[in-house]
């Protein structure tokens, strides 16, 4: 929870800094004010191509642009649970839309667990978390045929600790796009 809040603060701060520095960028931003995320992404790309010096900032980098929810890739879970909490719906909506809009996008969702319990059962639990994320994204319009779900179980922890802080960090599904 606190990771999402922190990321959001950083994203907003970067966004504000961006507006202040780059005046040509500001013209494009006027058509799509940061507060409104309903504007279709295609408008951004078209605008980006029209002004070549901005191309690197807009098209092709939506997935890693800290302004964009697409740069957030992780869904966190409670212990023994694969329930995707409501706070992630916006994030998954953004990814589902991206996948729907980009026919060549191929995605892998990687499920993880904390270190407690049997390794093989944890592999399956991580899988179930990845599947839960995929299911929501397909309901939101993403093509399931282009989404693979795999699990690392407890084998690739992001946090190496042995306490609840570390465990919470590791109970996670990550969204990865092919080519990254």
């Amino acid at each position, binding site marked *: 929870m606190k990771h999402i809040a922190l990321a959001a603060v950083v994203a907003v701060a970067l966004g504000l800094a961006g507006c202040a520095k780059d005046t040509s960028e500001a013209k494009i931003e006027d058509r799509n004010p940061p507060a409104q995320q309903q504007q279709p992404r295609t408008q951004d790309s078209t605008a980006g191509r029209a002004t070549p010096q901005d191309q690197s900032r807009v098209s092709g980098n939506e997935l890693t642009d800290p302004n964009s929810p697409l740069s957030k890739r992780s869904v966190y879970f409670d212990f023994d649970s694969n329930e995707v909490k409501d706070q992630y719906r916006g994030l998954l909506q953004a990814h589902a839309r991206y996948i729907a809009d980009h026919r060549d996008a191929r995605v*892998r969702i990687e499920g993880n667990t904390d270190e407690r*319990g*049997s390794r093989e059962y944890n592999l*399956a639990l991580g899988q179930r978390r990845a599947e839960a994320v995929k299911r929501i994204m397909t309901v939101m319009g993403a093509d399931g045929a282009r989404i693979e779900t795999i699990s690392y179980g407890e084998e690739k922890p992001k946090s190496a600790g042995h306490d609840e802080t570390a465990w919470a960090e590791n109970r996670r599904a990550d969204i990865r796009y092919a080519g990254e």
Partner: protein
Amino acid sequence: MMRIILFLGALLLAAAAQAQLTIDITTSGGRQIPIAIAPLAGESAQPQSVSAVVSADLSRTGLFRLIDTTALNPIPTEPSEVNFGDWSARSADALVIGRIEPQADGRVEVRFRLFDVAKQSQLASYTYLVTTAQLRATAHRIADVIYEKLTGDKGAFSTKIAYVVKRGTRYELQVADADGFNSQSVFASNEPIMSPAWSPDGSRLAYVSFDQKKPIVMVQNLAQGSTRPLAAFRGNNSAPAWSPDGRTLAVALSKDGLTQIYRMPSTGGSNPERLTNSAGIDTQPAYSPDGQWIAFTSDRGGSPQIYKMPAAGGPAQRLTFEGSYNVGPRFSPDGRFIVYVQRDGGRYRIASLELSTGQVQVLTDGTFDDSPSYAPNGKMILYEAQVGGHGQLAAVSGDGRVRQRLSSSAGDIQDPAWGPMPTN
């Protein structure tokens, strides 16, 4: 050329020394057989002490108490030199004597005799003609004979164990003697390795590799070193389990959505046969020794429990009813017990279920115990324990009375698998 060979040799020695497991034993209760193992005449001139390895093997079972034989002078090597009264006075029930004689062709002849001290009778006498490189293996065979003569059960000292060593982000699948010596690296990777599983004839190891950035089941021929993917379907491929005839592997696949159990020929195939069909997770299959059943983990009932089904698939029967987390079943070699991982009050421990009575016994007292694996004689269970945040191997006897801790400075040790009885 010479320099390269020496360099490689040094590397191998270094690797072997580094990965060596040191073993501590604790036992609680039960009678121990007092046995005197005299040094073998001539063994001090050999690169390997046979009596030391035999002593360590027997002592490690927790069933024997070693009678001190260090101050023996002269060392008896023939029956005529044995004073049974002496050994009775030292409280020995059994006595082992022998000799090692170099042969003209550079090999050695190893002879040993086992005596019942009270009855003053010989229980066993064997001679082996071996190379000096085979002295350790010969000592293990001697320990097997002694163990069987005195306990009635087959010894497992000549077996191998497989396990995964993790050092930072480096993973190695290793095979070592059952006492931790002579470790060899079978497969190494910068990605995780899991779940090694021995083929019943000991010639192959199946395991899970994350080299392809997702779990895939590989099978490696140990003698040839050749390896091929067995199951690399969409999603996860894991939990390989060999049928007792070695012709089939059951695996856990998520290719159809959730993790379910399938089986496929050990030679590979593109059409695995699905065995389970539940709305939950079905994983961790294990064949019964008679090949008729597969025990497995399933949370189809809401919490992960142990079930069994016919080996060809079919209605599943639940086996565990205590607690909310019972996973990872393994049959004992005689088929009478299943060991598994049980969570109780936040602690994960190894438990044993007697199938005929439903009686459960918790065998270990760690916090994150996992991956139990039976010795092929059914006497000890090897498993992974967490000590100070690091994985170490441990072993416990089937009745819980004897405990071993196998420590290594090599790194985290996980996922042990005890190999089968040697076929020779």
